[in-house]
């Protein structure tokens, strides 16, 4: 692409605009491995003490590895549930002439628009009643069901782009409707499943309010709750430690993006290239 304007003013302008963000990331990293004298921004010594949470258990907290494992379990379980149900429900809503189809379509829309916070107390009461309060299972089920409307809607959109002829051809070839779905249609919406999977995982990884309210106990704590408990701890607040754990918390997200950014970019150019 050739430009018909000079580049440097725009570069400078955008540079100034982004500088605070870049500086923040830079200091986030620098502060985790250094100490600075009070009142100064220039560090004066290297240290690994802010990363001590990796080999020590902080007083009154679970080990970081339990929290990490919980977070991983939480994010991947919700992702699996969301993927499984969305790919089936999206297909039904897109293709099957089932009773109440338009009701479900509208209902899913409304549910998607519902703010989570308004449901919190009701969900809390329900979980307590069925005995799933303070369990990972409970919060996984809640998170998955709140993610479902979005997932179903996305998958329906992907199914809508698959040509009907492929299904008709499958039926003619002797496949049952179920075989058509599994063997012929599902492979066409792979990009959709993939992107929904990534998004659900990230949403699960960063979820805070649900685990905080529904599963606050040490043994079921996820990283976001673990992190927030550090802020609430007013007696010995350690900014460097907080930043290190924060960095530790986003590393998987960054890795995920590094590996899959191409696929995430391709989501909308994917689909059916028959």
């Amino acid at each position, binding site marked *: 692409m050739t430009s018909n304007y000079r580049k440097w003013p725009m570069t400078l302008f955008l540079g100034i605009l982004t500088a605070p963000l870049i500086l923040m990331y830079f200091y986030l990293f620098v502060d985790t491995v250094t100490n600075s004298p009070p009142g100064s921004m220039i560090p004066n010594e290297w240290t690994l003490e802010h990363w001590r949470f990796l080999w020590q258990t902080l007083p009154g907290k679970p080990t970081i590895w339990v929290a990490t494992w919980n977070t991983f379990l939480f994010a991947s379980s919700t992702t699996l549930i969301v993927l499984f149900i969305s790919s089936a429900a999206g297909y039904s809503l897109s293709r099957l002439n089932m009773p109440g189809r338009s009701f479900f379509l509208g209902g899913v829309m409304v549910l998607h628009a519902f703010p989570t916070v308004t449901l919190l107390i009701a969900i809390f009461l329900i979980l307590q009643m069925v005995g799933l309060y303070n369990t990972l299972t409970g919060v996984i089920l809640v998170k998955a069901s709140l993610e479902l409307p979005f997932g179903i809607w996305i998958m329906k959109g992907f199914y809508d782009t698959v040509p009907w*002829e492929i299904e*008709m*051809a499958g*039926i003619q*070839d002797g496949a049952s409707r179920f075989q058509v779905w599994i063997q012929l249609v599902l*492979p*066409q919406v*792979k990009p959709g499943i993939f992107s929904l999977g990534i998004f659900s995982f990230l949403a699960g990884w960063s979820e805070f309010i649900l685990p905080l309210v529904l599963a606050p106990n040490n043994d079921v704590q996820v990283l976001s709750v673990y992190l927030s408990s550090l802020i609430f701890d007013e007696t010995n607040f350690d900014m460097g430690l907080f930043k290190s754990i924060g960095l530790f918390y986003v590393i998987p997200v960054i890795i995920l993006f590094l590996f899959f950014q191409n696929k995430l970019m391709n989501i909308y150019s994917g689909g059916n*290239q*028959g």
Partner: protein
Amino acid sequence: MRILLDKFTKKFGLTTVIDQMDLEIHHGEMIALLGGSGCGKSTTLFAICGIHKINGGRILFGDKDMTNVASQDRNVGMVFQSFALYPHMTVEKNIGFPLKLRKESTNEIKRKVDEIAEMVHIELLLDRRPGELSGGQQQRVALARALIRRPDVLLLDEPLANLDASLRLEMRSEIRRIQQETGITAVLVTHDQTEAMSMCDRIAIMDAGKIVQITEPKNMYENPVSKFVAGFLGSPPIAFLNGRIENGSFIEPSTGTKLPVAEKIAKRVNGANVCVGIRAEFFQPGSGTTIKGIVSFVESHGREILYNVTLPGGNILRSIQSGQSGAKIGDHVEWGINTDHMLIFDSEGTRI
């Protein structure tokens, strides 16, 4: 296998698209369902393959009643306009898919795929995916997939519409060759009269959910039962003149030209308003009953030249000539109509 539609009725909601249609397709025959869009030809096809449930009547394959048999169990091969290949499978997997569903052994599938691939000339493409094939190649794969389990009937839904012109010509003869080699009963749905005439043993021409005429292509061209059929077949299209029959002749009102009409017909409709159809090959210089007009359009088809001749009253006659008559736009000409081949229709459009 013989296919019989017996009083077949199809409704979409409250609209009856096809009302009590009868159609018999002979064993080993290739028949064309020809008609404009919305005439019900594709609906008929989908009823035969079972994708549409029918609202009345029966469908028989041979002597077996297939009316309530599920699509999967009908043993029908279908080629779609968009080919509908499975994008994620190789050509080999695409063609073998129907056999895989029948749980045939891998070796058996391989052998049959190779055999059919050779017949449709795609043996070198088996490892490719549909996205890497040209339109004509995709078409061949679609045909192979439809034929591999030896279906009772092969259904072709506008199979040539997505191909470019030169490929269309090639695939026309290829499909016909493969159909004749396999001896399979085939139904072709098309809106293109050339396709129907060149590929099929018989043509069923449809209009508004009814079969208007069903016969061999040549006979349909020469003896259409109605103005609709006459207008649908033939390129360039037939030209129509309105006028009256008086004293054994058709009178063209604007020129007063008298075109003699067979005695039997003339007697029956003496004094009535009729419409005559004159095909371009029967309006030529130097023979027949002459009529005067002005050349209003000249179109070269290479070997032949098409002239439109406008009569004083505004009616247009067409003439297709292989010789060089040298007429130019605006020339006054006096060419002859071969009155033996005039097609005469009454005011409702029915052939007299």
